[in-house]
């Protein structure tokens, strides 16, 4: 398991500067010991892609959730201790398990809070999407923007027509 607080990147030696078999081995070694970072970054990028590139508002929310889950995994992986047990008081320890340490409970607690926050954000987001669907009849970002634009144009055209009519009335008087 990766050690918390260890160097994120392999030491930059001369081998790392020139891409070659040695640098490749370095990257592999980094992956072998720090695969939790690789996984969380990969998940985060998938989520980020969904948030930025998808036009469907619900899919954006799913992407956001993926992003948050990636962060949860990152936190939990930094709290992991090799061979440790779940951080809940273990009263009936069997013989031979006296020396087993607990995992770091702090990241777990933090993520419990973060999950609640994430659920609240998702709830608000979905409620907004429901209301948007009622107001616009679609959940597609492009269609919503186009609909807004059409409305603005119609409004400004109406205002101009009114002004022109008022001017004409003023000219007659």
């Amino acid at each position: 398991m990766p050690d918390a607080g260890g160097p994120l990147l392999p030491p930059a030696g001369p081998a790392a500067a020139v891409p070659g078999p040695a640098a490749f081995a370095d990257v592999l070694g980094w992956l072998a010991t720090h695969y939790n970072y690789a996984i969380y970054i990969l998940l985060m990028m998938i989520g980020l892609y969904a948030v930025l590139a998808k036009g469907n508002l619900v899919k954006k929310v799913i992407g956001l959730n993926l992003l948050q889950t990636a962060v949860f995994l990152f936190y939990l992986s930094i709290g992991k201790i090799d061979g440790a047990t779940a951080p809940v008081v273990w009263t009936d320890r069997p013989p031979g398990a006296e020396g087993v340490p607990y995992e770091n409970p702090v990241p777990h607690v933090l993520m419990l809070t973060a999950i609640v926050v994430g659920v609240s954000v998702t709830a608000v987001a979905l409620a907004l999407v429901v209301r948007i669907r009622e107001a616009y009849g679609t959940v597609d970002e492009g269609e919503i923007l186009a609909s807004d634009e059409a409305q603005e144009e119609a409004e400004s055209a109406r205002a101009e027509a009114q002004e022109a009519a008022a001017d004409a009335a003023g000219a007659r008087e």
Partner: protein
Amino acid sequence: MPVALAAAVVVILLGVLVLLRRVIVGPRLLDRVVAVNVIGTKTIILLALVGYLAGRPGFFLDIALSYALINFVGTIAVLRYYEGRVRRGEPVEEEA
């Protein structure tokens, strides 16, 4: 004993892999739903096995129980979605 438990875990994980194929390829929505549901059932067993492996079955079983409940409600929710589309005569399968 731990060896047998670990072997069981491996077998179940293999089963999950096989089921994942069914989730991804389909072909029908119902296939996917059933496959996901079976994966859920396997997860419950997996949780229990991990509990015994860790030597602390007591609260891993609690988690397994809660998971079973959520799995049940979740499956019903997905099937209700399916039922609603069938009732309204909307297409249920994704077009290829």
